[in-house]
């Protein structure tokens, strides 16, 4: 009979091996899925995972990797603090939207004035917008004991409605012949999130994501704040004994994740997306949850996981256009990744033993 035996302490080896095992299993079962769809599994897997990096069009795809990866990493870093502390903000998508709206609104308010101060103000507004949206579930939980999972998730749909109303109303381009959507910020120099090195995909959001990774790493491993976050997640009672105020921690973690999601939204709207439109959000806020867990809630892990997830996005698009694969298949692949990760995660804390059936 197969038995799970608890390890005396978490295995270091498996901590690193489980994400890789999860990726391998995802490729394996993803391949089966593609075969069932009538595709050559090897070609499909190669298209998704390798073509963005090594095909003849890689020069086009590689910058895309940074552009798609940056918001994922930025949001996931913010979420990882809360997830480690047992605070489940799954509404990053909404915070991302509100951050983009606030940041874009500040930029558009200055149009057509040109000043170096506009972009920094937009960044502040973006972070603030996301923070504000995250404070709603945070304060409701601290004050009234509501469930932050439900509230933050539901606020995503509220944010989407807000986005639509902005795109059609207050922020609509006055010169846009009545079409929905705001002015294009990437064509407004003072407000544009431009590439720092042309053609590299390296915009200010990418830089911010890297800074976030480093700051998060230091905070989690060297600072008492990170210690308290980890302690609260593992043993809430011990955390209270150590002097952590759980309500304050909830608010801080929600604030961090909201602000970083808002920043991601701002960098997206001022750069790659360019404008507030009805379909501005593409699910980065949800995918970042997978990225956070795939990266083991560790900043460096999240960086790698963000890259991998960006790869599946780009590879998925290639597979969609070249092989005619439905977009849902790519989403299943991403879901599988999280599923397998959580499933093999058990190996970190347990070992499998084979024992004879006891009569």
């Amino acid at each position: 009979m197969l038995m799970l035996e608890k390890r005396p302490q978490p295995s270091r080896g498996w901590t690193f091996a489980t994400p890789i095992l999860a990726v391998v299993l995802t490729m394996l079962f993803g391949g089966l899925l593609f075969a069932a769809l009538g595709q050559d599994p090897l070609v499909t897997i190669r298209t998704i995972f390798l073509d963005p990096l090594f095909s003849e069009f890689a020069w086009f795809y590689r910058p895309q990797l940074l552009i798609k990866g940056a918001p994922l990493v930025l949001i996931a870093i913010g979420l990882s603090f809360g997830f480690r502390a047992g605070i489940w903000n799954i509404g990053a998508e909404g915070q991302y939207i509100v951050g983009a709206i606030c940041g874009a609104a500040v930029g558009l308010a200055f149009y057509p004035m040109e000043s170096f101060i506009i972009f920094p103000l937009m960044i502040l507004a973006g972070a603030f917008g996301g923070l504000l949206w995250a404070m709603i579930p945070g304060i409701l939980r601290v004050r009234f004991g509501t469930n932050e999972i439900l509230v933050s998730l539901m606020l995503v749909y509220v944010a989407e409605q807000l986005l639509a109303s902005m795109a059609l109303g207050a922020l609509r381009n006055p010169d846009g012949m009545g079409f929905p959507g705001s002015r294009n910020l990437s064509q407004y120099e003072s407000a544009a999130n431009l590439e720092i090195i042309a053609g590299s995909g390296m915009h200010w959001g990418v830089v911010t994501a890297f800074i976030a990774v480093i700051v998060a790493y230091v905070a989690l491993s060297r600072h008492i704040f990170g210690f308290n976050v980890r302690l609260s997640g593992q043993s809430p009672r011990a955390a209270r004994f150590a002097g952590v105020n759980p309500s304050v921690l909830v608010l801080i973690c929600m604030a961090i994740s909201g602000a970083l999601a808002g920043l991601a939204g701002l960098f997206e709207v001022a750069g790659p997306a360019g404008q507030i439109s009805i379909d501005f959000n593409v699910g980065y806020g949800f995918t970042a949850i997978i990225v956070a867990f795939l990266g083991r809630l560790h900043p460096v892990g999240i960086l790698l996981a963000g890259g991998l997830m960006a790869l599946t996005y780009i590879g998925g698009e290639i597979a969609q256009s070249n092989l005619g694969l439905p977009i849902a298949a790519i989403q299943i692949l991403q879901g599988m990744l999280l599923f397998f990760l959580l499933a093999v995660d058990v190996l970190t804390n347990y070992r499998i033993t084979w024992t004879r059936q006891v009569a």
Partner: protein
Amino acid sequence: MTEPLLRLSGLTKAYPGVVANKDVSFDIGRGEVHALLGENGAGKSTLVKTIYGLVKPDAGTMTLEGQPFQPSEPRAARASGVAMVFQHFSLFDAMNVAENIALGMENPPPQAEIAAQVRTVSDQYGLPLDPDRIVGELSAGERQRVEIIRCLLQDPKLLIMDEPTSVLTPQEVDILFETLRKLSAEGTAILYISHKLEEIRALCDNATVLRLGEVVGTCDPRQTSARDMAELMVGTTLHVPAKADKPAGEVILALSGLSAKAPHRFGTPLRDITLEVRKGEVLGIGGVAGNGQDELVAALSGEMKTAKAMVSFKGKTIGHLPPNTRRKIGLLTAPEERMGHAAAPDMSLTENAILTAMTREKLTTKGFLHWAKARSFAEGVIAAFDVRTPGPQNAARSLSGGNLQKFVIGREIMQAPEVLVVNQPTWGVDASAAAAIRQALLDLAEKGTAVIVISQDLDELMEISDRFAALNEGRLSAPRPAKGLTVEEIGLMLGGAHDMEVAHVDA
């Protein structure tokens, strides 16, 4: 010699990395009260689980009344006449006594019939218990009676009792012992597991001592001193804590009218506790579990905030201060629950050292942690308190209960507190480690620290306390000098415990 009721021969059971039982053999006769002694991890639980059909031995055999006895599960053991009362009760709070008993039966008769049976058995054995009462309202002693009566209804030949008196007041212990003696007189054998040697001397006919899974000796407890039995258990000479008489110092901690609402549904409210604790004294607080111990510790540690003036330290009111501010001024606490409260199980010992020592040992600067300093502090605790572990990088959960207890108590003592509050300092700790912890607490008091020890172990409290007070339903009795207190007086202080009358058994 007549054939024994149960004969164990050569029982061996190994788990990965540890031999729990090695060639264990002994006999239990009909009507015999047999004690099973041993430190934590000596293999008592494994042995008992083997007899009760929860563990299958690797080697060895058992015979019950001359017949081979190999219970594959507890149901089979019960069918053969072996019953067991566990240390932790398996009762549903929301149901009444009769319903709880019916739940443990294969084919329960109607409720009224069970209630009648419960009344008969409870009269017969002097165990006062009303079958219609809701279990959630019963005291620990009464809950235990439910478990015992559940066993007695099966008319067992052998009754196994695992640490039965740990939750009882002295009066309740007397009631239990009357019952057990009556059962034994009727021919029911009892296998009695306990740490409390005086109890074993009072109750048992024979004792088998286990150490590291092996039988290291047998004795007649009525003829053997508690000290000799303890040394047999530990395998070394036992060190008894020494306590010096000393004049009382000035008042350092004062509680005045400390009251607090119960923090959760099953908590206990604190009611008007007034107390002064002096430098250099050990104040023992006794009481049955669930009478406000956790809440009192929380109010002292700062986990539960109270009105400012309810707690004062060196004349300053501190009832509103959070835990780390209290640590800074010198008020340290060690709560009862090691895993998940005093220590985080999945974190390393170094990290667990930071948990409470951060402020006083200055393990951070502007919030940045000094890992090397924290590690050496943890190493200091490990060395000074003989914590058995490969090193401070190991997770807290990899330590045995006793070793972790030494670590969490040592962690507070090493910070040189001015007032130290400990809850159940030696709970689940083996005899030699318990003696070491008590000695460390006395040494600390010697240096002028006020030590408050909250414990359910009255022997322990009498051994180390200068003054003794009792908690009962959130009220604290006035402290009295511990020297010269009799068991009866202590029982009355613990007072209000249910069913104070000793059983009237018609034997």
